[in-house]
C-alpha cells in the first residue's frame, strides 16, 4: 500500500446531539510519524480516532491523505489498520483465521495468505499459535494478535485505541516496547490514543494533548513535558504543585511571582503585568535541597514520606500551611525541616482565569 506522506485533519467537528465531542480539530501528521492523542476521558481523543477510521461521520471538516479527501470514503475502503481497546478478536476463528480475515476478504491466493500470515505472526512472536482460539491466549498474546491482524494488510495508517489499558503494569511496559519496536521496524504512520502520559512520552514523535474536544498543546514529548502550554497540560503532565499567586515584577527575561508564602522567579517570555493574578506550578521532582543562598528557595516541613525505590516522595507543608510535594533521591523523615529550591526555568506561570481550565 502506498505510504502516507501527509495526513491532514482540517477542522474536523463531530457533534452528538447537543454536545460537541470534537471542535474544529485540525492536525497535520507527517508520514511515518507516531502521533499520540493524549487526554482524560471525554476529551475527544477516541472520537477523533473513530472519525479518522471512518467509523464515525464528520459533522463538518475534511480528512485528507496525501492531499486527497478520504472522509467521504467508507471505513471498509480506507485500508487503515485498527487495534481496539478490548482487541475485538473474532472468538469463533482461530489465530490464523483472525489474521487471515482481511486477506480472505480480498480473495488473496491461499499461498500468499499463508506466507503473509506467517510473517505477521512471526513479527509479533505468535508463530506456533495458529490453531489456538483467542480465548486460549493470555491478555498480552491477544493484544499481539490484534496487532498482527491489523498490520498483515500493510495499511497506510495504523490506529491504536488505548491498546494497553486492559493489561497489568508489567505487561503494559513489555508491550509498550513491542509497539515501539514494531513502529521502528515497519514505519507505518501511527495515531495512538491514550490517557497515560508515560505511554505518550515513550512512544511518540508528536504528542497532542486534548481537552473537551480541543487541542491544548501539540509538540514533541520533550516540549510537552518541560514546557506545558496551559495549566491543564501542566496539571495533566504531573506539575502537581500549584499555587495561586500575583505577579510582582515582569520584564523581557521573565516574571517574579508571590503566593503561598513563596517568592519565585520564572524564566521565559510572558505576557503578564505586575499585579496580575496567576497560577504558578512546578514538578515535585524538579525540587532540590539547597544550603547556599539560592533564589527560588523556600522552607518546608516534611509530613508524610513514601519510599518509591529509586526516590522518596514526601508531602510537606510550607510556612503558610499550603502543601507541597517533593520528590528527592535522598531519604526524608517526618518532622524534618528542609530548605528546597526550584530552578528558574522549571517554574511555570499561567494567567488565572478562575479555574476554568481545569
Amino acid at each position, binding site marked *: 500500500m502506498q505510504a502516507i506522506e501527509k495526513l*491532514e485533519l*482540517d*477542522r474536523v467537528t463531530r*457533534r452528538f*446531539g447537543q454536545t460537541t465531542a470534537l471542535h*474544529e480539530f*485540525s*492536525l*497535520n*501528521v*507527517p508520514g511515518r510519524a507516531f502521533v499520540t492523542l493524549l487526554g482524560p476521558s471525554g476529551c475527544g481523543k477516541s472520537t477523533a480516532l473513530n472519525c479518522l477510521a471512518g467509523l464515525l*461521520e*464528520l*459533522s*463538518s*471538516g*475534511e480528512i485528507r491523505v496525501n492531499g486527497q479527501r478520504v*472522509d*467521504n470514503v467508507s471505513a471498509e475502503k480506507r485500508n487503515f489498520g485498527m487495534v481496539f481497546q478490548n482487541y475485538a478478536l473474532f472468538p469463533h476463528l482461530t489465530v490464523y483465521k483472525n489474521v487471515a480475515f482481511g486477506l480472505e476478504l480480498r480473495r488473496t491466493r491461499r499461498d500468499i495468505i499463508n506466507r503473509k500470515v506467517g510473517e505477521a505472526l512471526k513479527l509479533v512472536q505468535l508463530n506456533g499459535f495458529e490453531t489456538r482460539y483467542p480465548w486460549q491466549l493470555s491478555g498480552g498474546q491477544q493484544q499481539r494478535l490484534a496487532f498482527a491482524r491489523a498490520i498483515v494488510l500493510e495499511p497506510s495508517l495504523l490506529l491504536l485505541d488505548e491498546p494497553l489499558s486492559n493489561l497489568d503494569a508489567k505487561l503494559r511496559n513489555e508491550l509498550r516496547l513491542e509497539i515501539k519496536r514494531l513502529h521502528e521496524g515497519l514505519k507505518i504512520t501511527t495515531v495512538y490514543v491514550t490517557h497515560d502520559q508515560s505511554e505518550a512520552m515513550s512512544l511518540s514523535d*508528536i504528542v497532542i494533548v486534548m481537552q473537551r474536544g480541543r*487541542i491544548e*498543546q*501539540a*509538540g*514533541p514529548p520533550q*516540549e510537552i513535558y518541560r*514546557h*506545558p*502550554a*496551559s495549566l491543564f497540560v501542566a496539571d495533566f503532565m504531573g506539575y502537581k504543585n500549584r499555587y495561586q499567586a500575583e505577579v510582582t515584577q515582569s520584564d523581557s527575561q521573565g516574571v517574579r511571582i508571590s503566593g503561598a508564602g513563596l517568592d519565585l522567579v520564572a524564566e*521565559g*517570555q*510572558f*505576557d*503578564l503585568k505586575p499585579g496580575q493574578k*496567576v497560577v504558578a506550578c512546578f514538578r515535585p521532582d524538579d525540587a532540590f535541597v539547597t544550603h547556599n543562598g539560592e533564589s527560588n528557595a523556600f522552607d518546608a516541613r516534611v509530613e508524610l514520606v513514601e519510599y518509591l525505590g529509586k526516590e522518596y516522595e514526601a508531602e510537606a507543608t510550607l510556612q503558610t500551611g499550603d502543601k507541597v510535594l517533593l520528590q528527592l533521591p535522598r531519604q526524608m523523615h517526618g518532622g524534618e525541616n528542609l530548605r528546597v529550591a526550584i530552578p528558574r526555568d522549571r517554574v*511555570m*506561570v*499561567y*494567567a488565572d482565569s478562575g479555574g476554568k481550565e481545569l
Partner: protein
Amino acid sequence: MSVQQQDKTTLPEASLSRAATRTAPFRAWKFKPGSLLGYLAIAFFVTNVLLLIATVVISSFSQGWFGTFLPDKFSTRYYESAGKEHDLFQLITFTLGVAFGVVLLAMLIGLPAAYVLARKQFKGKALMWGLFLVPMMIPPMTYGIPLATTMYRFDLANSVIGVTLVNLVPIVPFVILILTPFIEQIDVNLESAARMLGASRLQIFWRILTPLLGPGLLTAGILAVVRTIASFELTYLVSGSRTQTLIVAVYNDAYGAGNRPGQQTDAMAVIYTATTLSLLIIALIFVSPTQFVVRLKR
C-alpha cells in the same frame, strides 16, 4: 494561555487553506433502510394481532355479523347468555384461585432451590438443572397423561387440589429458571458482610435477600400467574364441570358438545382476555415492563 510556545514543531496546529469544506448533513433521525423494514414488519405483525383481538371483542358485542365491515347491531345478550350457561363468578374465582395458589406454592418450593443453584457448587448440579429443564423440553402430554391418570387414581382429579398440582409441574421449573439469575445478580459479598456483622441465616434471608429480590419475585410471580391462566393442556386433562379454568371453558364452548352461537364463545374469550389483561395492568404498576419482558423471553 500566557506561556508562549517554544519553537514551533513540524506541526502547525491549525489553519490550512480554506478549501471548501463539505458539511456532513447531521441527521437527527437516523433511520437506516434495513431497520425501517424491520419496524414495518413489526408494525404489520402487531397491527394484525390487535385487529384480531378487536374482532373477537366486537363480535362478542354484536347481534350478528355477516361479512360487513362492522356488525349491524350491537348488544350484550351474548354476555348474558354466557353468564347463564356458566357460573362466571365461580369460574373466575376458580381460575384466579388456582393461578395464585400455584404461584405461591411454586415460590415456596422453587425459591430455596433457585438459591442453591445460584450460589452453591456441588456434584450433580448439572443433573439437577437437567431435571428442572426437562419439563420444558418435552410435550406436556407426555407427563400430563400419566399425571392425570394418577390424579384420577388418587381421586384428586376434578378438584382444586388436582388442578393446582398438575399446573405446578411446569411452573416450579419456570420459577426456578427465572429466579436463579436474579439471585446470581445479588452480590455474594452482601451475604458475607451480613454474616460478619452477626446475622443468622434467617435474618439474612429476611433482611437482605427478600428486599433485594423483590423485583425478581414480583416478575417471576406475575409471569407465572399469566402462564398458569393461559395453561391449557394440563388443566384440561384433569378438569371437570366445576373445576374448569377460563381457558378450558372457552375451549369447551368452541369445540365441545352443544350448539352455541359463535358470539357467545367470543364473549367468553373476551372475559378471559379481560381477566388476564387486568392482572397484567395491575402488575405493571408494580414492575417495570422491561424487566418483565426480558424475563419472559427466556
